[in-house]
């Protein structure tokens, strides 16, 4: 298990922009995106963060504010608040500098945003805040947040996730006037580590979900990956990156018939979760195929020309084989078959969702 004592999160979802064309540009998913991201972060089987250290900012949370919210100051206050709390808590609860340094090495800040977005130089994703208007495009640049926090090494790890468009616009990004020197961390060569997940490539759009879905395309894939949908038993920066690169374009095609390719840039070895999800797999043999009359089929996982694992799926009905499998590519063969030795084989992909496929 990852020690999450020193993990913090700021989660922002903006779905209503009342000052932009009288709200005609409002979005459907960002508030739900933020709520579900916060739910994963605080889930004991997910991010496992103390709920008191997850700041959720939507138009409904925290309650009692006047719209339009959230705005820039709330978001920056939330980040700076966690930076101050982190330093303060270390000072108050830890006995010496060595312990504080160890805590810093285990620390992490998640900064997740969902809403309308823009890009500047092609390496940013700036969230447009709720009080933006057609003449004043108020925003917060995730790149600037990352740069400021990285420069002063405020946290040991930074996870920046932005589910927003990255279309460029002729507006320079407003810099953040932060002086983070009071929260400066330690000099450790490999830190801070960063994971940056942007919903689309530069100059490209990110999309809202299809009608039946609750979360925006990127967030759907992100949550599925974080919950263990990746290939392998551990959700790391590396496996999550590969999962997102493969799944986001598929979801965008399936739900919106649009192209959406994420942009991920992660340092290795950031561990999000030690778990994996199994998906329901139903294989239906085509009549007359070599698999049609079999009582079971073998599902093989191969790696570098070697069979790594073999699972048998029994026939639930004649020619229909069912079982549970994690994300990965598999070779379906008759029982005991070896694809490397010329056995009949059907290639199968399981990618973060239940799979039905005709084989043979």
């Amino acid at each position, binding site marked *: 298990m990852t020690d999450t004592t020193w993990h913090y999160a700021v989660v922002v979802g903006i779905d209503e922009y009342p000052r932009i064309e009288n709200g005609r540009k409002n979005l459907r998913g960002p508030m739900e995106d933020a709520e579900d991201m916060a739910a994963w972060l605080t889930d004991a089987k997910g991010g496992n963060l103390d709920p008191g250290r997850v700041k959720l900012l939507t138009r409904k949370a925290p309650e009692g504010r006047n719209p339009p919210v959230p*705005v820039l100051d709330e978001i920056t206050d939330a980040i700076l608040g966690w930076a101050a709390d982190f330093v303060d808590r270390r000072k108050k609860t830890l006995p010496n500098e060595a312990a504080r340094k160890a805590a810093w090495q285990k620390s992490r800040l998640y900064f997740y945003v969902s809403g309308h977005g823009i890009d500047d130089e*092609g390496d940013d994703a700036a969230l447009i805040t709720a009080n933006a208007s057609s003449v004043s*495009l108020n925003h917060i640049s995730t790149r600037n947040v990352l740069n400021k926090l990285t420069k002063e090494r405020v946290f040991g790890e930074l996870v920046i996730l932005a589910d927003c468009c990255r279309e460029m*616009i*002729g507006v320079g990004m407003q810099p953040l006037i932060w002086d983070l020197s009071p929260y400066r961390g330690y000099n450790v060569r490999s830190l801070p580590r960063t994971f940056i997940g942007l919903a689309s490539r530069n*100059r490209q759009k990110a999309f809202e979900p299809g009608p039946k879905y609750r979360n925006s395309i990127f967030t759907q894939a992100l949550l599925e990956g974080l919950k263990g949908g990746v290939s392998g038993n551990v959700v790391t920066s590396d*496996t999550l990156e590969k999962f997102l690169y493969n799944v986001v374009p598929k979801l965008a095609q399936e739900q919106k018939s649009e192209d959406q390719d994420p942009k991920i840039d992660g340092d290795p070895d950031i561990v999000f979760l030690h778990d994996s999800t199994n998906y329901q797999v139903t294989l239906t043999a085509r009549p007359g195929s070599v698999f049609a009359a079999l009582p079971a089929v073998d599902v093989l996982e191969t790696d570098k020309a070697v069979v790594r694992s073999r699972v048998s799926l029994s026939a639930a009905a004649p020619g229909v084989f069912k079982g549970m499998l994690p994300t990965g590519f598999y070779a379906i063969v008759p029982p005991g078959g070896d694809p490397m030795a010329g056995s009949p084989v059907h290639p199968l992909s399981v990618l973060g969702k239940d799979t039905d496929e005709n084989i043979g």
Partner: protein
Amino acid sequence: MKISANKLGSLSVVPQTPANVRDVPRRIQITDGSLSLVAKGFGQLEKVRLPAGVYQARVESVEKPFEQMVFVAPGKKTSITYPVHEREVLPSAAPVPGADAMHEYMRDPLNHAVMRPATLKPCRIVVMATRQIAGPIDLSGFRFLDAKGREVTEMVGNLGDAEGNEWKIISRDVDEGGWILEWPAANFGPKKLLRQPLWCSKNWCTLIFVGVNVATGTPDMENVSIYFWRTGSSFAPEQTDQPDSWDTRNVLQSQRYTELALHSLVNGRSLLSIDEVDTNLLVEKFKNPMLGILGCHLLLQRTSKDAKLIRTVVANLDRLVPGDPDVMALEVMARRAGVKGLKSLARTLSWPPMLRKGFLALRDEDWLKPGTIAQGSVCDRVRAGILSGGVWTRWVGEKSREEFVAPTAQFAAVRKTAPAWKKLSNITGSPAPTSKNVLSYVKQFLGRGGKKFLAEDLRWTGMGREQATAVVRYMNEESAVARRPGIRKAAARISPKKVVAKKDKKTRSTKAPQASGRLQVNRGKTQRKA
């Protein structure tokens, strides 16, 4: 771990119908069971050696992407064919292979404009506007300015002007050096204009291809392509009696590669394989130096830089188009990227490079080595106002064309009672929008208190070090004036005290920084998740 040869298989991914020089190659990616990318290419992949196992082949397309799972057996050759329902083309106004404006009836008049005998001037600018559906093309808002900002109405050699149902050509023979394209910038305000610098080299045509807004018939400058083509050299050799010759194929390919390289830079994602950049772009540059400039930008974007190749390209480009600001920018970019042994072009730059990335690199260089950009030049006066995004250098200007006015003339025009932003413009030489933006930032900075305000804090604006230092000095002087009793008016604009007091009164929502731009909703800029 090395895998023995008998455990390897080979995989080919090929299009259903053979691709020709006019097609845009599709991106092909092969992933393995851990979802890692194990091979990629464009157009087709031939006999990629892979460890036996299960793979996914994905071929991108403007229609639905093609995906297929495949088992690569040890010692066997596996081949996948992907369908090609319709040709993939690039959204470009240039009538070149691979672009959606590629029509023979547009290439003929273009060729004529390029081949026309030279007049007394050594360079030529050819602007070609194209549209997909026949209709009017209105270039009346479109202007050429000379290096001093004067509109050019009469130029030698306007015999090259011509038009058809879906195209219009304006051709001018001009002197070597910097020129400006200017057009209305409706998104930035009714009286605003967008300006883009051009460079003309001796014996070369600078070809500018612009699209046309179907509704208004006016130029759509979103996708502009710029080529350099040797004056008198055929742009459309396929229309001669040797349509299939090696030379003809080369010319067509160089035009297609220019478009692919340009779109690679626009999208930040290469549409060309490394081999194609290495060979085709850089060899073909002798016919079309823009190909070399774009190719060198692509080379510099790679993680591992081929220093020898970059050195060769920069040196060749300098011989082909001497004095071109883009080549000088490339030299600076290469040096900053760690390429050693470059012949220093060592010139002070006074005209902006056409490619924005080059301009940004020069701006950075000038911060470290003041004098790289000539003080008071057009390049210096627009440096802080360059629009973000896009491939080309552009800025928003006023009808007064103040960026072309000599700094001394403007200094005299500013009164003591002028607003702070105007004084700032006077100090920095930057146009009004930039000064207002800087002033707003400085107010916030001072209002926040704590950290000392330094020139380095203004580096992000694009100003030079000297300009930034002058701004800091000015702000400090004004703050000092503001603290003297009886002088309250000047204090109103910049006093930190006043800013703090104002800040306390304001509601939270008005504290957010104001971006100096307009939301371009009509172009779908915020149509996220639409």
